[in-house]
């Protein structure tokens, strides 16, 4: 590289846990800033520049003014990366979309819910507002995946974001399938790349990396009875990260 790409990190509606994963890179941060130059990063630095090549967006979009701010960022950046589940697909915040916005405001703000600065809209993923070049999936992101993507970008290489289910990594890890314990695991429809962390730790997959490109959600529904489960059980399991995800992925709008 002749010059290091200039990187700015922005946060929208989220817990900032994915940025925290970046801060948690610790000594690897020094390696990271050897290949990229951060110019704006609220959580980690005081300097501030609007001249950047790569914009990293954390969080989902829940207000009209955030959409405007995001569009401005997109206009400045050559490459825009969605960081984490909230940015990539709306994340846990998307749960909100299962309710009316009045309900949501009333539940959270009580009698103040009508105040104009508390206005809110259904959660959008970054990609529903502007073009996203790459998504770093996960809640939170996987550090090693992020650093690998960073090195790819420094080399001018398109990072490989898996388009196969978590089962691939789970099988390679030699795990016992969670379905053998009659648990609903979202591994078969969820994008791999996490190294099957949850099943390796004895939990089902929560689906935090979103669906693969062509998830067989219908099959998931069809096999529930065999595992002593119902479609309602499956739906509730999908609610956390995958509320209305399939709208973007295919014709099945059952959930």
């Amino acid at each position, binding site marked *: 590289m002749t010059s290091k790409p200039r990187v700015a990190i922005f946060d929208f509606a989220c817990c900032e846990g994915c940025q925290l994963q970046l801060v948690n890179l610790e000594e690897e941060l020094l390696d990271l800033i050897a290949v990229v130059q951060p110019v704006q990063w609220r959580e980690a630095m005081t300097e501030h520049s609007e001249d950047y090549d790569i914009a990293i967006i954390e969080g989902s979009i829940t207000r009209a003014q955030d959409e405007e701010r995001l569009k401005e960022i997109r206009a400045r950046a050559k490459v825009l990366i969605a960081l984490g589940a909230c940015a990539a697909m709306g994340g846990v915040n998307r749960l909100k979309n299962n309710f009316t916005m009045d309900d949501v405001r009333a539940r959270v703000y009580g009698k103040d819910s009508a105040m104009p600065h508390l206005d809110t809209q259904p959660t959008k993923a970054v990609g529903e507002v502007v073009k996203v070049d790459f998504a770093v999936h996960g809640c939170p992101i996987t550090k090693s995946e992020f650093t690998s993507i960073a090195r790819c970008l420094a*080399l*001018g*290489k*398109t990072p490989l974001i898996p388009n196969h289910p978590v089962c691939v990594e789970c099988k390679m890890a030699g795990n016992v399938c969670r379905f053998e314990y009659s648990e609903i695991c979202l591994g078969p429809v969820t994008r791999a790349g996490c190294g099957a962390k949850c099943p390796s730790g004895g939990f089902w997959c929560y689906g935090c990396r979103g669906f693969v490109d062509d998830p067989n959600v219908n099959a998931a529904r069809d096999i529930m009875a065999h595992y002593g489960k119902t479609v309602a059980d499956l739906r509730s399991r999908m609610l956390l990260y995958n509320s209305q995800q399939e709208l973007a992925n295919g014709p099945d709008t059952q959930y």
Partner: protein
Amino acid sequence: MAKKKTSAGGTDIYLPEMATVVRSAPMTELDRFLEFRLDSGRELGHRPGQFVELSVLGVGEAPISISSSPTQAGSFQMVARQVGNVTRALHALAAGEKVGIRGPFGTEFQVDGAMKGKDLLFICGGIGLAPVRSAINYVMDRRADYGKVTILFGARTPAERLFTEETRRWAAAPGVTYQETVDRGDEGWTGNVGVITTLMPRLAVDPGRTVAVICGPPVMYKFVLLELRKLKISDANVYVSLERHMKCGVGKCGHCQVNGIYVCQKGPVFRYSDVAEVREAI
């Protein structure tokens, strides 16, 4: 196929040997011409139609057809179309920079076999011209060994035509018919417009002494084969070069399989009559 070791004295089939870019020039917006020489000084030793696995350090490896004729000693040439990481990185390489090479791998156009002494009909779409050029130039260099030569080339647009100077030379050579067409013309274009099969009904071929070669995008084969049947050229006299992801090049990784056939070993060049019944082939 060539029984070359992939590295000096080595037996590791996955180990590339180093080569140096000796020439790199843009051809179209998407395509770049690249010429290489093996650092060991050995000849690549390929046959027309074969491919190599080319590595760009840190980026990865991809199968790429060899575009030069083995009659041209000392170096070998390729056309890199920017479709993935490796080819994109290739576009950025300047003369003097290094790549890794494994191969050559795969089967060849039968320039010293079934094609010898015959009239030849080359039908190429887009980047498909790159591997076939190896055979065409082989034939040009041994012109007396072959009959009439007909070359059809189709590109999406005039600007996407490849080897325009060389195709002019082919067109001017005695006993050679060269025709080209584009899917969409532009302001300056006065030539043929239409898919490549539109050039075929007008061809005057002697089906009994013609061998045809097809290489192009996946969608092209079916239609070209239909036209060849209309020209009464038998399937046994047709050779197709099939594109697949020949990831390992040595019949192991499974990616290039067409039904039971490993394209990296039994292809990429097939006699069409051998694969006409293979369902995943065309």
